[in-house]
């Protein structure tokens, strides 16, 4: 028997009629100027088929450099995939996969030197590896071991923070410090499309512009802030135009084209180093995987959409370019893939050796010196561990 429908539906007669809106007539006594939004330049060098679509901007990189870039993207993908397996097997905590964003990641970091600074968001495996973070360090971190956060020696990076966009003002602060010291370092900071709505990010744009601070803002527009598509996040057709409003020059780049990312970031870094202030790069890319491992994207996006973006895969695209140049063939691709996989697996072994919780160290790094009250709390805590036989 079909149950009768509950009387929840609002009867049409209860819906107030919307009054018809008559558009106001333009005033004749006041002549208004045209209010308009500015245009933002676009950059793509390598199209989806791996062909050069903008020869004037093709970078003249040596073969070894091109292969180094390719390898970094493959390694990033291998780590991402392995981490997902480890998470599903219970060996990894919740983490934010970056599959599909490899070109954005490697391109934005490529022009930096060791003395430069990088303030990443949490979805930054590729860039972090390029900067010198170890694979096992990143595994430790996402598996819930504090020592994974240890910034490697000689790497001028911030450890990422989890609150979206909250690290971006710090990048501006580092850049203000650099400027004050007449240093010629620059800062690159990245964040997602969701972060563009955060006050902290907009405040950071303004600060950087006012002080002409040497910082490059990279907005990785990967289409979604968890479930929220970018076109619902903002009312503008792109995110790059946030920049000019603050006096920050901006460009919109095909984020799945590593050459375009390298070229745009190189220019932005040069501007910053020359004292010409900050800039904003919107990297248009796609989160091919999950927001985090706790996410189910099927709830909010269609498979066809994902398939369309798979065809735009940044690695496949660059691979075709390198094959056309005669720098790669299928065997080399296979060999390089295996090598990267092996590198990840070896790091996993090192991770497993180090993956031991150190509950006796939780009071460390709180202060330069523990105040007496905290010393007391630490003694109580350690006594509890002793009673429970926890080492």
């Amino acid at each position, binding site marked *: 028997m079909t149950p009768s429908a509950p009387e929840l539906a609002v009867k049409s007669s209860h819906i107030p009629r919307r009054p018809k809106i008559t558009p106001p007539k333009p005033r004749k006594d006041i002549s208004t100027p045209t209010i308009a939004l500015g245009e933002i330049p676009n950059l793509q060098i390598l199209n989806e088929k791996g062909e050069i679509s903008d020869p004037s901007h093709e970078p003249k990189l040596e073969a070894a450099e091109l292969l180094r870039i390719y390898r970094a993207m493959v390694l990033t993908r291998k780590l991402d995939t392995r981490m997902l397996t480890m998470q599903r097997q219970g060996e990894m905590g919740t983490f934010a996969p970056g599959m599909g964003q490899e070109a954005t990641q490697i391109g934005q970091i490529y022009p930096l030197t060791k003395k430069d*600074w990088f303030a990443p968001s949490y979805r930054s495996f590729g860039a972090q590896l390029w900067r010198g973070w170890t694979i096992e360090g990143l595994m430790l971190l996402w598996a819930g071991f*504090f*020592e994974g*956060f*240890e*910034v490697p020696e000689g790497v001028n990076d*911030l*450890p990422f*923070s989890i*609150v979206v966009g*909250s*690290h*971006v*003002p*710090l*990048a*501006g*602060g*580092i*850049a*203000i*410090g*650099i*400027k*004050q*010291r007449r240093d010629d370092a620059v800062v690159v900071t990245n964040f997602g499309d969701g972060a563009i709505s955060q*006050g*902290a990010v907009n*405040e*950071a744009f*303004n*600060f950087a512009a*006012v002080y002409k601070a040497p910082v490059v803002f990279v907005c990785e527009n990967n289409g979604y802030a968890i479930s929220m598509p970018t076109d619902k996040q903002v009312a503008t057709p792109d995110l790059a135009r946030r920049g000019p409003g603050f006096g920050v020059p901006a460009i919109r780049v095909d984020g799945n084209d590593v050459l375009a990312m390298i070229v745009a970031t190189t220019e932005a870094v040069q501007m910053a180093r020359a004292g010409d202030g900050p800039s904003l790069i919107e990297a248009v890319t796609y989160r091919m995987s999950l927001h985090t491992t706790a996410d189910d994207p099927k709830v909010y996006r269609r498979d066809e959409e994902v398939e369309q973006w798979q065809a735009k895969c940044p690695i496949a695209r660059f691979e075709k370019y390198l094959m056309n140049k005669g720098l790669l063939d299928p065997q080399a691709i296979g060999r390089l893939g295996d090598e990267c996989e092996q590198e990840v697996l070896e790091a996993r072994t090192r991770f497993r050796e180090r993956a031991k919780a150190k509950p006796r160290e939780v009071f*460390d*790094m*709180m*202060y*330069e010196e523990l*105040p*007496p*009250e*905290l010393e007391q709390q630490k003694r109580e805590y350690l006594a509890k561990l002793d009673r429970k036989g926890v080492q």
Partner: protein
Amino acid sequence: MPKMNMVEALNLALDQNLANDDRVCVLGEDVAVDGGVFRVTKGLLEKYGEDRVIDTPLAEGAIIGAAVGMAVYGLRPVAEIQFSGFTLQAFDQIEQNMARLRHRSHGRYPISMVMRAPYGGGIRAVEHHSESREAYWAHTPGLKVVIPSGPRSARDLLHAAIDDSDPVIFYEPKALYRAFREDVPDQPQKIAIGKAQIARQGTDITLIAYGAMMRPALEAAQDLKDLHSIEAEVIDLLSISPMDTQTLVDSVSKTGRCVVVHEGPRCCGIAAEIIARINEHAFEHLLAPIKRVTGHDIHFPYFQCEQHYLPDADTIIEAANETLQYE
């Protein structure tokens, strides 16, 4: 020895630190050309230039975020938030970055910075200009919180705060900015953050206060002696976090009676923490329940009523008497 008010003493501390350490810089709204709305940073721009005395756009979150970034880079920024009511705009940066970055970076980036802000009532100000929210910061791991009670302690504490390797919230009782003058020596007295001071010795009861509440506490102690021959010991807390538990416990162990005074709301206020610690460490010495004289758990009244809201000497004396008469 020159007599200075608190504004001049703070200015001296900033001046000397800017002169002695080129990593020190000052940033905030109206701090450079204007010299700060309370004139604490007056004249510093002319001496140290706009690279080190920095007027910022009006965005408290970015002021603290930028200061944290500067500290990461190796500078020692002293950020001014114009009124403590506006520190809430920066709450996220304080909690996320200022308090946590040493820890998050596994010790790589200690955040040696100071956030100065005027706090407290008593200057007939508009909404959000009179609050005492030091308990928020005392509740936040990773921070230190200090509050001076006069020109001299302001100068010495600010030196200590700038010297400290950890982030310090430096709350200035704005009612005291120009309230009185004290001798301020040329060179600061070295004091450690985390130490309270016994402002007046006594044997019968302990009065614990800090900031602008030190004056009514000391006035109450004098009246208790003059009118009732009661010898009250008065402790100036100075450091809210870490708190000098030992000095508090020693005093109450001696007197057996205690009144704690602060302007901020009572619920989960600093007095609650002080009383808990005394209970933990000196319970057997107590002769009476500890009383609190504090602000109420209401929004700070508009200024025509603020004199009734703020604790005063009379209220402290009444609380002391109740404590003394308890059997």
